[in-house]
């Protein structure tokens, strides 16, 4: 998966969690929770969807790595390099 596809994977999950949210103009360097209505329950969902869709395991201690789109990409690049984007 390319960096862009990882971004799409995360945004796809967020869109499924909250279809009423506009994710078209996210700043990749700013914390997701500052731009969107995401609380800790939703971050748990992102983690669980990553596991369900891509078989990627994110341990509790690494949740903060998912704070921004940029940090997601950095953190997931290695874990997702052999995965294909699920639409």
């Amino acid at each position: 998966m390319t960096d862009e596809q990882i971004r799409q994977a995360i945004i796809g999950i967020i869109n499924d969690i909250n279809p009423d949210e506009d994710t078209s103009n996210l700043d990749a360097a700013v914390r997701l929770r500052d731009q969107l209505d995401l609380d800790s329950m939703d971050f748990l969902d992102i983690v669980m969807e990553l596991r369900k869709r891509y078989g990627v395991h994110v341990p509790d201690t690494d949740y903060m790595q998912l704070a921004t789109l940029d940090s997601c990409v950095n953190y997931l690049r290695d874990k997702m390099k052999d995965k294909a984007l699920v639409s």
Partner: protein
Amino acid sequence: MSNAYDAIVIGAGMSGLAAAIRLAMFDRRVVVLERHDVWGGLNSFYQFRGHQFDVGLHAMTNWAPRGAKGLPLSRLLKQLRIRHEELDLHPQGYSAVSFPGARLRFSNDFELLRSEVARAFPAQADGFDALTRAVRGFNELDLEAPQQDARPVVRRFITDPLLQDMLFCPLMFYGSAREHDMDWDQFVVMFKSIFLEGFARPAAGVRHILKLLIRRLREAGAELRLRTGVSRLLVEDGAARGVVLDNGETLMAGAVLSSAGLVETQQLAGGASLLPGQQPQAGRLSFTESISVLDCPARNLGIEETIVFYSDRLPFAYEQPRDDVDVSSGVICMPGNFDLPEPPRDHLVRITNMADHGRWAALGHGPEYSAAKQRWYAKSCAAAVPHIADFRPHVTLVDTFTPRTIRRFTGHAGGAVYGSPRKLRTGRTGIDNLYLIGTDQGFLGIVGAALSGISMANRWVLQGSGE
């Protein structure tokens, strides 16, 4: 030991359905067991002479507009992947609290209540604002916060006992399992959900919400078994291993989430206290409710309110009545006075009063029961009409349900509408793998109950179990 299920959920009310959806969404094998022949629990529905009636729901509390952030309703929608518009919510017009010598209107715009308090109780306006700040500042999601009573806290801000009672009245009627007082965290939950957020209702009533939840449940792959009562829990070495059904069948599971209630779940577990060192009591508060079908919209009679909470008695007494029913206070709901896109099929007035389950249970099943229903219906309407226009000449059909009905739909001992006065906020019982969800975990209303199921499923099953 291999488990047939990852989780068993007892009860197909709002909390059980929501918990099961969450677990199944993330590929847990889950079954919901419901003793009754219909889902919904307290918030269910039935047919009467061709009319579709709701049981529990007057209004959905916790109203929030689409896109509102950080509120319980938005949290619920995200967790269950439901779009706001799918709920088909229509906000109330306005409601009122009607007491001797004072009437306060409120709506989904909190400013209305603020201005009404300032008008009717000018000396209390600052105190009311301070109370509102205290409510807003309290984190009701902190499940470990120590219990404290609400009355002493409210008295610090509001010195007029009439206003105290008028604020407590709607919050108690819509969610207090305790008599006379509420836990402060419950007061906060109810104040936010009713006064700060507000009322709304799907055009088709609770059926619509349940239909959505059942569809999600099936899509997610959870199993739902109706007419399937649990006779006891299987507990070995201090841990729940499964359940035995009324028909003798045994189901094994890694976790059991029970919405049966604290006292009821304890009975299923063999009677030993789920709260070591304490013996929780069944709730003492139950309701009667009458549903009157009118030959015209309530508005045509000059009834503009969506819901009226009243008390003729001062101080307002929220307690088990000393008679079959206490008509000195109650809730009057006009479901047609939500902002509906088109007129409802039936024009209804629903009146709820506190009632004593024991007295109703003693009436048997014969004509005595029907006669009592008729007698109390007349008294209840007579007590209601000083607070709304007299609708009685326009009534074409009546049905009444009693604490016995509530018992049948909820399975709660004593028909306790809001369960035990003792809540178990963490959901964790003295038995491993056994968790309480729903009413007795302590979040009430449709949104609250569903969030209870969701948060307990998240915390104790989904989060706890890394594969």
